[in-house]
């Protein structure tokens, strides 16, 4: 089944953590097609302000019920308008887009996931699917390293109870769990526990993902990262969402991958981290406007 465009009906749209909203949608076509790690391009408002769609990952996919959930941080005007949408109104989505995560093929793999802030969004459905696939075997629990700037930006612990995951919390300001970056927690805890994941998944700010990538590459642990880029089309047509990548032929020639089509899930080794500019994504909205 391919991609489609769908007018999804809003079932719920609520703030679940600071500046973080959960939107539940009746979107049967996309729910039937979507896989964990894929995303949709959401038209946040009618008219031409804003003009472009916004990419949002599928946080939950309830294929049976024909529903999906989006978890999003209010980062600018697009997501702000989305947060103002009322239940029963319609939101147009194209999807499912992108490659999605590759599910671990060893059912008893030692799995770790690293989520920074809103980076939890795409990882959640993945954890649910892995939990389901392992419900019949006696595998070790998955370990989720989940950090945010502050306690109020974290999803509540209760939401993880349905999954086969033990959560390790961190906050930059120390207001909850480990005090420091989630990558520091990853490093410390795995060292202390002598835990070596055989599969790693991560999503979060670019700097965080870079650190996860370096940590994993140094240990030769395969890692799937969910990366971001500015997008116009989401379907590989505009070539706007390029990220500098290692040339597939192994040459040193310039090469780009496209997040919407080749990703958003990439292996750590495929990205040319050195060539990613600091200021890749837009700054926060201007507080005076």
């Amino acid at each position: 089944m391919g991609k489609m465009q769908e007018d999804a009906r809003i079932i719920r749209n609520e703030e679940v953590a600071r500046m973080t909203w959960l939107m539940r949608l009746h979107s049967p076509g996309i729910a039937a097609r979507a896989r964990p790690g894929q995303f949709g391009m959401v038209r946040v408002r009618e008219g031409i302000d804003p003009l472009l769609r916004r990419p949002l990952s599928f946080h939950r996919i309830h294929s049976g019920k024909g529903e999906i959930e989006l978890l999003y941080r209010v980062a600018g005007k697009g997501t702000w308008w989305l947060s103002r949408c009322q239940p029963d109104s319609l939101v147009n989505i194209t999807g499912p887009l992108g490659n999605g995560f590759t599910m671990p093929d060893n059912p008893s793999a030692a799995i770790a996931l690293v989520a920074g802030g809103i980076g939890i969004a795409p990882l959640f459905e993945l954890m649910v699917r892995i939990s389901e696939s392992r419900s019949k075997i006696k595998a070790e629990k998955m370990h989720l390293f989940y950090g945010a700037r502050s306690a109020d930006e974290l999803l509540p612990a209760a939401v993880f109870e349905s999954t086969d995951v033990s959560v390790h919390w961190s906050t930059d300001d120390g207001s909850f769990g480990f005090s420091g970056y989630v990558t520091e927690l990853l490093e410390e805890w795995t060292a202390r526990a002598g835990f070596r994941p055989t599969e790693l998944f991560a999503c979060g700010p670019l700097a965080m993902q870079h650190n996860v990538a370096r940590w994993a590459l140094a240990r030769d642990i395969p890692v799937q990262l969910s990366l971001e880029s500015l997008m116009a089309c989401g379907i590989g047509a505009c070539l706007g969402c390029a990220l500098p990548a290692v040339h597939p032929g192994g040459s040193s020639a310039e090469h780009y991958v496209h997040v919407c089509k080749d990703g958003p899930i990439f292996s750590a080794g495929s990205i040319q981290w050195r060539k990613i500019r600091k200021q890749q994504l837009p700054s926060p909205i201007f507080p005076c406007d």
Partner: protein
Amino acid sequence: MAQNPQATAAVPDLSVRLGPLRLKNPVMTASGTFGYGEEFADFLDLGCLGAVVVKGISLLPRPGNPPPRIVETPAGMINAIGLENVGVEVFLASRLPGLRERGVPVIVNIFGNTVEEYAELASRLDGAAGIEALEINISCPNVKQGGMIFGTDPAMAAKVVEAVRLSTGLPLITKLTPNVTRIGEIARAVVDAGSDILSCINTVAAMAVDIFSRRPKLANVMGGLSGPAIRPVALRCTYEVVRSVNVPVIGIGGITGAADALEFLLVGARAVQVGTANFINPATAVEILEGIERFLQVQGLAGIEEFIGTLDTGCLFPFAEESCEWIDLKQP
């Protein structure tokens, strides 16, 4: 065909003729906004379209510009993709065949750094089956002339078109840039050089910066503005070009719906291309087709030819001769 007037009203004739090119309808997709067509196959029936203009092709593959390559602006977007493309060989071997199977006429957008590159590219495409026309993108800097853009100088633009004309028998469309003082002058020059058709406009030179990081929002600093924001500029350019030459013109710029497309046809464009709108609604092009059909029915017109170029400017501005405006109102 139109023997029974009621039957005519029911199914208006959308076919248009653009010089050597015949299209079943006037709605195409613009270069660089529709990939190689395939990307949109899930959203619309490619076979319905008048034509697909593929992403600009060069002799050799090009990686494109470093990111960020795009930025959203009021009712528009700026892009600086850097003409990333697979190169003519890969295009012919692995993109064109799939597109041909979809049953849609293919127009290939070409560009080079030198006149010679344009010519060589054209002769490579000349032999290939399944190409309806070439669209010459003359908005590239002429590397031999120190980066001066081909499309901003009538003599240089003409040289490119002449060279391409000698290299192929395919219908030639020349795509004009709006970033010039007198677009009609460039239009006349490339028509004299052998262009069968003109298309306009390419993007408007633009820029955006981030006041926090104090950096340009595009790695390339400048880029091209597209989308609804530029529609009034594109319509003006199209009207100027239509009045400057006697060859068919294709209108491009900010078209998002049937009403927009009809504005370009009204001022005399014989076809349109849909660009940025494909990103916002991937089914835009077919929805425009349906909208045009309904419009013709409601207006009781038998075909689109009855509407094209019927703008009525008579008696509209009795005082215009004495008028002094702060923008260029006079024709070149």
